[in-house]
């Protein structure tokens, strides 16, 4: 039995079935990539795993630590050890990143807020942050800014990985983390993710382009087209997609795979 099992997952949005039976096993220590063209159901997969209320589960289950994740609220999933790095991190005005990170860490240590002794001390917090900030080429000033407010595309994605490093999940889903990033940011972000790799962490990278996989080498690659996984295998599949795109499964986007840098922003 794998640490994280997706079994025949079917999901609809506004009455339309998007994921039509997905199964995927992820063990800690492994890096999986799910690749697919636009409209294949990539975002639906990441949002459903985390429990976004806008997605309706039509069937299947996700087993993690002996529970069916799909029956749990997003915060409970997170506290079990699941993490989602958002494609579009959300702005929350008036709350500083420092406050946010501390609250998230404390929610994990002491979810009921009843035992203050379990909460993170300022000293511990600073120590935890220091290393990660350096790797991601971020400075302290970022902590005083409001959650994702006025962040550039690159800053947002780095902040997502910083949170991941702080929260130390067991399964991390990276949703199109490379989209909208310039090459330097991709490098910093990948470096940070690679540092977190290890026997305790399973990673699921969801991406349209092969580019990020040059920096974060996957152990397994799965091709998602039209709500189904049509091919699974080793990293060589990414190389094949680099050449041919998704055309062989009827997708229209072969050119875009190679020209992945077209949507770069600072």
């Amino acid at each position, binding site marked *: 039995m794998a640490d994280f099992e997706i079994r025949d997952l079917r999901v609809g949005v506004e009455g339309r079935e998007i994921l039509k039976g997905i199964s995927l096993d992820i063990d800690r220590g492994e890096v999986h990539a799910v690749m697919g063209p636009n409209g294949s159901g990539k975002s639906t997969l990441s949002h459903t795993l*985390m429990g976004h*209320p806008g997605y309706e589960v039509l069937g299947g289950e996700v087993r993690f630590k002996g529970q069916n994740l799909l029956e749990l*609220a997003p915060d409970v999933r997170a*506290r079990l050890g699941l993490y989602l790095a958002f494609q579009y991190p*959300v*702005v*929350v005005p*008036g*709350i500083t990143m420092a406050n946010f990170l501390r*609250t998230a860490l404390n929610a994990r240590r002491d979810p009921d807020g009843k035992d203050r002794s379990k909460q993170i001390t300022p000293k511990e917090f600073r120590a935890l942050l220091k290393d990660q900030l350096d790797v991601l080429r971020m400075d302290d000033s970022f902590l005083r800014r409001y959650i994702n407010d006025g962040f550039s595309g690159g800053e947002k994605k780095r902040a997502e990985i910083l949170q991941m490093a702080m929260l130390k999940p067991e399964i991390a889903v990276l949703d199109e983390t490379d989209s909208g990033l310039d090459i330097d940011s991709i490098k910093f972000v990948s470096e940070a993710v690679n540092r977190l790799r290890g026997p305790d962490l399973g990673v699921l990278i969801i991406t349209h382009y092969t580019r990020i996989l040059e920096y974060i080498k996957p152990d397994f690659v799965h091709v998602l087209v039209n709500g189904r996984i049509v091919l699974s295998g080793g990293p060589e599949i990414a190389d094949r997609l680099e050449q041919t795109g998704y055309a062989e499964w009827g997708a229209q986007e072969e050119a875009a795979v190679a020209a992945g840098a077209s949507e770069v922003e600072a």
Partner: protein
Amino acid sequence: MATAPKIDIGQDYKEKYGFFVPEEYVFKAKRGLNEDVVREISFMKQEPEWMTKFRLRSLQIFNKKAMPTWGADLSVIDFDNIFYYLKAQDKQGKSWDDIPDDIKKTFDRLGVPEAERKFLAGVAAQYESEVVYHSLHEELAKKGVIFLDTDTALREHPDLFKEYFGTVIPPGDNKFSALNSAVWSGGSFIYVPKGVKVDIPLQAYFRINAENMGQFERTLIICDEDSFVHYIEGCTAPIYTTDSLHSAVVEIIVKKGARCRYTTIQNWSTNVYNLVTKRAMAYADATMEWVDGNLGSQITMKYPSVYLMEPGAKGDVLSVAFAGTGQHQDAGGKMVHVAPNTTSTITSKSISKAGGRTSYRGLVKVYPGAHGAKSFVKCDALLLDDNSISDTYPYIECDENDVTIGHEATVSKVSDEQLFYLMSRGIPLSEAETMIVNGFIEPFTKELPLEYAVELNRLIQLEMEGSVG
């Protein structure tokens, strides 16, 4: 209603012996309002004749004025069923057992000390902070700062008092300012001399007693030229009272180059009608800032205003209103540009939950000749659910062409995306929602002294509990 005895013992005592003992006079509290009651209040307080006349004139105005027909529904106020003056010892009739459980629970949750609880609940007349107050008082006195309750100020500084009292808000301003002028009792009096900057906030809290916390407080602040003072009234802990009407008047004079900040955190128990008139006159290059937070009460109607009387005067209103079940917060601000090159901003933030209603009501008025005036009004409303209400009544009356006036209003709901994002980090739903609300009012909170900001955030947390699910 029986006529009160007219024997002027108190006045005689004061003149002959220089002291008086009004406490020994047996005053029988009665409900309802008429000339006799007003005379009796003035007599009990040993006031000079001009004040007695002022009160009686105000009563006539009150009787003539119609109730406001706009704003919140005030039709249930029964003026005949209110005590207009109670001595402190009369107010102490209540016992701790009479205080509602939810109020006690909130004290617990906020960690309000025992001594303060009894005071806030109206069980004790005096909060034991005399020592703190005394040393502060001496320090202020050295600088010539006067900080007294308003009744004492009238006795000790009669000339200064008479010069300014009732000049900013005349009794005839509105029905409730007339009422307050007739029956006022307690409140704060502050005078800051020329060039003196008071570096710690003055809090009514230091010398709080039942009288100051009365229904009809009257506050008068005079900032002489180039001075500064920050005054804070109220506290975040709920104030329990069985009085259903609170109608205060606050008058402030900010002279040339001076700056005054007046911070209010109002958290009356939810049976109270809170109808307050607050106004400041700002002279050349003076700055008046109202920081006004309204959480409690059943109905609040309050529009702090600044009259910008001379060139360079600046006025700010920053307000937050929170309305839950059965509450209507009708709040806003008023900026009157009388002189050229005056500037004003009004920032209003409101939160409605569980059927609560918040209204922004504001006026920006520019008189002819006030060229170069600048005004910006921003109101943001946050709705926590579908049955809560927010509305906006922004009025602009401009009789001058050379002005810059901006207005911006937003209404938003706590977004699913924000909640999902915070929850995806392991933060429970109720805490996530509280964070969003605290983030929304952060522009307000950051203007508060730290201890108030922390308490306010905790209070929002308490208000939010049980609001989601």
